[in-house]
Structure formats: C-alpha cells, structure tokens
C-alpha cells in the first residue's frame, strides 16, 4: 500500500488527500487547475469589459 506522510499544518481548507480530476477523452485536468484557468478567463473578460474610472483629462 502506498502511503505518503504529509506534514500538513492547520489551514481552513485541507487540500491534501486524493485529488479530484475531470476527464474528457484523453484530456485530464485537476479541478484545482481548472478553477485557476477558468478564473483567469473570467478575470480577463471582466478586465476588458468593466468600465475604468475616468481620470481628469487634460
């Protein structure tokens, strides 16, 4: 049996333990990575859509 000893200190969410993965055909991605990538796309879209404060024009 394969056991890895982990020195995990207190944290609000414990991300240690078996990872969760999404599968589409040959594509396999961790939920964590998918969250990061999707967040990047959302933030990018928001960044170009949200209005920026108008400064004092000269």
């Amino acid at each position, binding site marked *: 049996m394969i056991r890895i000893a982990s020195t995990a*200190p207190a944290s609000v969410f414990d991300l240690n333990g078996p990872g969760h993965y999404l599968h589409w055909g040959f594509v396999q991605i961790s939920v964590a990575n998918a969250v990061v990538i999707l967040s990047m796309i959302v933030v990018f879209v928001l960044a170009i859509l949200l209005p920026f404060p108008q400064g004092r024009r000269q």
Partner: protein
Amino acid sequence: MSARVPAQPLPAEHHLPASGSWTGWLRRRTEAALPPEKLMPERQPAYVSSWIYVFGVLTLAAFVVVLLSGAWLALAGPTWWHTSSVGHFVNSLHLWSVELFFFFMVIHLWGKFFLAAWRGRRALTWVLGAVAFLCSIATAFTGYLVQSNFDSQWIASEAKDGINSPGAGAFWNVLDMGQMLLWHVTLLPFGLGVLVVLHLLLVRMRGVVPPIGVDAEGFADAGQREGGAR
C-alpha cells in the same frame, strides 16, 4: 544651533562637461533617453483607461512578494519549512504569490497580445517580456526542485529525461540539489530581475502603445484605418 544657508547658484565650473568623461557621456545618454519626467510621469495618454492595464503592475507587485517571501525562507535555510509552522506558512506565502504572479502575468500577456502592443518600435518590449515569462517558468521549476520533499524527488526524476535529451543535463543536473538551489535563489531571480527592469524602462521610454488606427496627435488615422499589425 542650526544655520539655514540660503540656496545659491553653483559656480559655472560645476556644470561644465569634462571632456572624454565616460561618466558624463553615460549620464547625458540616459538623461536623453529617459529624463526624470518620462521615467516617473504623472500623466498617461487618455486611452490608458481599462482594467487590463493594471495587470502589469499586479505582476510586478506579485514578483516583489515572491522575492520577499523567498528571502524570508532563505533566512532559515531550505529545510526550515518542514519542521516549523511559521516556516510552513512562509512557504505557503511563497507558493501562492507565485501562483498569483503567473495568474497576473499571463493575463497581462493576453492583454498585450490583443492590443498588438509591439507596434511602433516596441518589439523589444515584447521580446523582453516573453523572455521574462520563459525565465519565470525556469525559476519556478527550480523552486519545485528544491522543496526537499516527494514533489522534488518526482519532478527531478521526470525532468531529467527531458533535460538530458538535448544534452543540457550533462551540465545542469536537476538531481543535484545544491546546484538547483543556487540557481533558484541567486542566478535565475537575478536574471529575471534584470529582464523586468529592462522591460519596465522600455515601457517608460516608448510610452504605452497607442490605439490601433490612431495617430500621435490623437486623431483617427484617415489614410489607413488599422495598420502596424498586419
């Protein structure tokens, strides 16, 4: 007892250029390329008004936090974080600031790509940024190698095949923790820092790229609608 000396103009010889002076030459060239008002301007062109523009400075800020948290880890050595809860927390700061660094940097890259920000003699700015991106990947990679845990063992074991195959592994041994630690803590961050400084100086020297189809006075370019990027 303090005496306030009123400011007086200096004698003329204090301003004379010395002939053949390397110092004077270097100072005059840098002043010409980047006078102080251009290095630290208080205004930007009116078109710099989108949230996409903050991702460069967010990347820079994240880089600073990466360096500070890394320096904190370096204070107590590479294995401190395994046995100290403070150390483990500092390691967490280092990991998450790196994740944020890449998060902001890639969004910055996407933005600059879609703005075709290399136009108007700004190709070198793009080149330096792209090289900095690749250098960041190398720096992060060596960071994973020096965690001194299972992750390091596995990553080193796998990566050695990729790096040995083009012959680089004969000189850059990912299984040698001492070598990788020195690259991670000194050589790569220093190189990356130089790239970042050059990148920033170029942005200040060239200015933020103007909108596609707009000339330097701010008019829509009537002669041709959208150029410089075809």
